[in-house]
């Protein structure tokens, strides 16, 4: 009895212990649950929210760029992209084969797509192809049910209807780089890289929106919780007139050169053309390295904006400035004139006039109309390099015009050059050469256009404006005697209207009365023997023409440069004529 009692007692003790053990375990679990659900609740709730909520950026639509009349220069086209989520694809080989068939991928492209799939997370969408037109994605969209994991999405891409015609002014976009990302732009966004697209980036870009989405464990969107719509970029209306731009481009033809047309009152840029251009639409569809290299290696340098980034010796188009300096200084030659014998002797060398037989007696008017070099050699000699430099800088030479397109070349005013400042042996001859816009004088077409506008509007040096309707900004009101300015204007009128004017033969029957100045800038120094050496295009002179119209009530100033074009009158002046004709016709019509 004692033994059985002991056994019974031990059993009951052990059951009790067992019960205790159960409660101990359950109590430990209770503590754990209190810890998780009470103490750690907030942190874990946050993690659960992070799990389920994904903030998806909503890209803004970029503002469109239009010309003065509202024609689209940079517009948004609807396009489609193809995505694929690898883990949802049943048969990858088959799927890729069918996509290859519809999207016309070559072997290299297919390889690249395969690499992209291999290197991405299986549950995340991989971008396979972009900027596709509807007709190309339509067969895929119709068969999406057979293509598990493949998705077609609509978006927009930039399109430049005028392509190469407006390439330098309008510019282009490219994917955001690491620097943009540091500034808060998303890697999948596009950013203006050149031209107006770059200058007005902040206006065009618009503001990013976002959407708080609830996603499931596979990253699929279940619902939208909150949405802040993106703000579309502002439309940008440029002062550019596509009609004029096209007329200028047509007149230039296949020649290399630049044309700038500026409103003489507001500084609005109506034409900003640099030829050759390049098709900016190629950037949008993913510019291939090959094409880029081709442009870089092209001897005609299509990527260079000749209107603002390249400076050339202005040649005779510089003479009105020298004349203004002479008038301001009341140089003796202004009063008495000189006699041109076709050359001037200076120590051991001869400086030649373009007209070998000489102009005979020349006064200021005749010197400009017929572009007599000898007259200006002597005027330059009388003025000296410092006077020339002062006058040139007054009219905006040797300094960027401040047009928003960058980087802008600043050109070179006479006496500003490194060789003048450093060398102790500056010869009179160099000053005299400068006075006909050769030697150490350089100007960009935009500088020449602004200079011409300032002559036309009475000495207001305007800030070039790209936007239509921008408030005019005067960089400087040049202190110039109205009578002096009038003499130069009359002479420039004579260039066009007088029988001996250098542009007369090329600018007849214009709808508007015009004033101008031709220029033929030597690329290599004039040979001493005076023989013509225009055998090769590379050494052919640059042809210039500057002018404004109408003569009595000026509206526009034009600067035309034709690289290696030859004579300014015959090569460059007709381009200005084409522009004036187009503009006059437009005004008549509307």
């Amino acid at each position, binding site marked *: 009895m004692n033994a059985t009692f002991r056994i019974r007692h031990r059993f009951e003790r052990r059951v009790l212990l067992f019960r205790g053990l159960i409660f101990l375990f359950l109590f430990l679990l209770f503590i754990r*649950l209190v810890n998780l659900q009470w103490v750690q609740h907030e942190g874990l709730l946050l993690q659960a*929210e992070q799990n389920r909520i994904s903030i998806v950026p909503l890209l803004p639509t970029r503002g469109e760029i239009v010309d003065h009349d509202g024609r689209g220069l940079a517009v948004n086209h609807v396009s489609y992209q193809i995505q694929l989520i690898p883990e949802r694809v049943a048969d990858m080989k088959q799927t890729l084969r069918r996509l290859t068939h519809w999207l016309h991928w070559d072997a290299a492209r297919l390889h690249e797509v395969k690499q992209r799939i291999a290197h991405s997370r299986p549950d995340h969408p991989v971008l396979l192809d972009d900027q596709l037109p509807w007709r190309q994605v339509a067969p895929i969209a119709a068969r999406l049910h057979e293509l598990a994991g493949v998705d077609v999405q609509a978006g927009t891409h930039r399109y430049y209807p005028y392509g190469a015609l407006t390439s330098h002014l309008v510019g282009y976009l490219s994917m955001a780089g690491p620097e943009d990302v540091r500034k808060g732009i998303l890697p999948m966004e596009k950013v203006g890289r050149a031209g107006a697209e770059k200058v007005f980036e902040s206006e065009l870009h618009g503001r990013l929106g976002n959407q708080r989405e609830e996603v499931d464990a596979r990253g699929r969107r279940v619902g939208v919780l909150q949405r802040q719509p993106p703000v579309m970029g502002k439309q940008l209306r440029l002062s550019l007139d596509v009609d004029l731009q096209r007329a200028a481009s047509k007149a230039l033809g296949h020649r290399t050169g630049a044309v700038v047309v500026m409103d003489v009152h507001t500084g609005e840029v109506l034409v900003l053309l640099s030829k050759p251009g390049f098709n900016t639409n190629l950037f949008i569809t993913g510019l291939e390295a090959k094409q880029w290299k081709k442009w870089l290696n092209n001897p005609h340098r299509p990527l260079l904006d000749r209107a603002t980034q390249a400076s050339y010796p202005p040649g005779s188009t510089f003479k009105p400035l020298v004349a203004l300096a002479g008038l301001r200084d009341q140089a003796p030659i202004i009063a008495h004139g000189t006699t041109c014998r076709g050359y001037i002797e200076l120590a051991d060398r001869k400086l030649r006039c373009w007209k070998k037989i000489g102009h005979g007696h020349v006064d200021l008017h005749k010197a400009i109309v017929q572009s007599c070099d000898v007259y200006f050699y002597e005027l330059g000699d009388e003025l000296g390099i410092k006077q020339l430099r002062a006058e040139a800088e007054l009219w905006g030479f040797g300094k960027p015009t401040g047009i928003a397109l960058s980087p802008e070349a600043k050109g070179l005013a006479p006496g500003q050059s490194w060789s003048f400042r450093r060398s102790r042996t500056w010869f009179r001859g160099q000053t005299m050469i400068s006075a006909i816009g050769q030697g150490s004088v350089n100007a960009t077409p935009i500088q020449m256009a602004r200079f011409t506008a300032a002559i036309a509007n009475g000495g207001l040096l305007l800030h070039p404006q790209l936007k239509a309707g921008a408030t005019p900004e005067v960089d400087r009101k040049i202190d110039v005697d109205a009578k002096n300015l009038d003499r130069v204007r009359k002479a420039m009128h004579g260039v066009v209207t007088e029988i001996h004017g250098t542009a007369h033969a090329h600018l007849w029957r214009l709808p508007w009365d015009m004033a101008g100045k031709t220029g033929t800038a030597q690329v290599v120094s004039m040979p001493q023997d005076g023989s013509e050496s225009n055998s090769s295009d590379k050494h052919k002179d640059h042809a210039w023409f500057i002018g404004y119209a109408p003569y009595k009530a000026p509206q526009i100033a034009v600067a035309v440069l034709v690289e290696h074009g030859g004579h300014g009158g015959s090569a460059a002046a007709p381009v200005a004529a084409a522009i004036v004709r187009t503009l006059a016709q437009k005004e008549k019509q509307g």
Partner: protein
Amino acid sequence: MIAWKETLRRMDPMLLLYLLLLGILGLITLYAAVHQGDTGLWKRQCLYWLLGLVLFFGICFIPLRSVALFSWPVYIIAVISLALVPWIGEIQMGARRWLNLGLFHIQPSEIVKWALMLLLAHWFASREASSLKGLGGAVLLSSIPVVFIIMQPDLGTALVLLFAASAMLFAAGLPWRWFTYGLITALISLPVMWRNMHAYQKERILSFLNPQSDPLGAGYHVIQSTISIGSGGIFGKGYLQGTQARLHFLPEQHTDFIFAVLAEEGGLVISILLLVLYGLFLSRILTIGARASTRFSSLVCIGIATIFMLYICINIGMVSGVLPVVGVPLPFVSYGGSALITMLASLGVVMRVAIESNGRIPWQRPGNPLA
């Protein structure tokens, strides 16, 4: 013989109540776990409940003497089917654990636990645990299924079986010093076991020790389930409102990890309610065992309570991140026919114990179990 009316009358109402409450809570939770996907699973689970309850009430009418007689054949059949698994078993979730019986699949390792408890209770009904024969036989009987299960490999179930067998030895009166010996042996054999473990088992244990080391791999389950539980807070996110469950961040949410669904949507309040229900339920089984009229009945109850306790503690422990991940269901809540039906069958045995203990003096010493 006890008349059927008398049988019904003598049923333990508290056990029935706890079972009923657990069943309702379990089915409500299971619906939340599957309502977005296959609600057919929920309907099937209801069917399993019906089947299980039929079995439960059926067993209530079988005298314990016959149950004791069944213990040998049930054990042998369970061990044989366990031995067959490597040959004709089916692979699910990367491990070969299932037998296809045509109509349904069974998991022999699931049945062998209960069979071993039954057999050990029967074994010790007439033997002292301290006797060499008693202890040796019990160790041998336990080792056979443990070895098969380790071979499957299913470390979790093997450990559950070892722990449950030890609990039976403890209840049967094995002196304390033997447990000390056993513990020392276990500690010594740990390094050997580690070396013989499968890569995935090691991975699980390592990921348990540091879940953040592999947040998308082995640690993912535990990270997501602790997030689910913790994000539920005190009052929960509301029924069917759990984002972790609804959006499928929570893996295996209708089977082993279902507790996280309950904790996320019901919060601390419902989690504690479940723990309390489990506590009362286990305690009730022990009470029934303590009041049993024979040593066999008492030991059976203790064995069954042990298995339930292990299931509950291991499951909630692993889901809440304090124990490594082993495949163990949450009783009456997790989806699964095999587990539910065997659990209800075993409860039928417990209920029969309650029915047969008629207030007479409880058992006093080992004797003939069939007496």
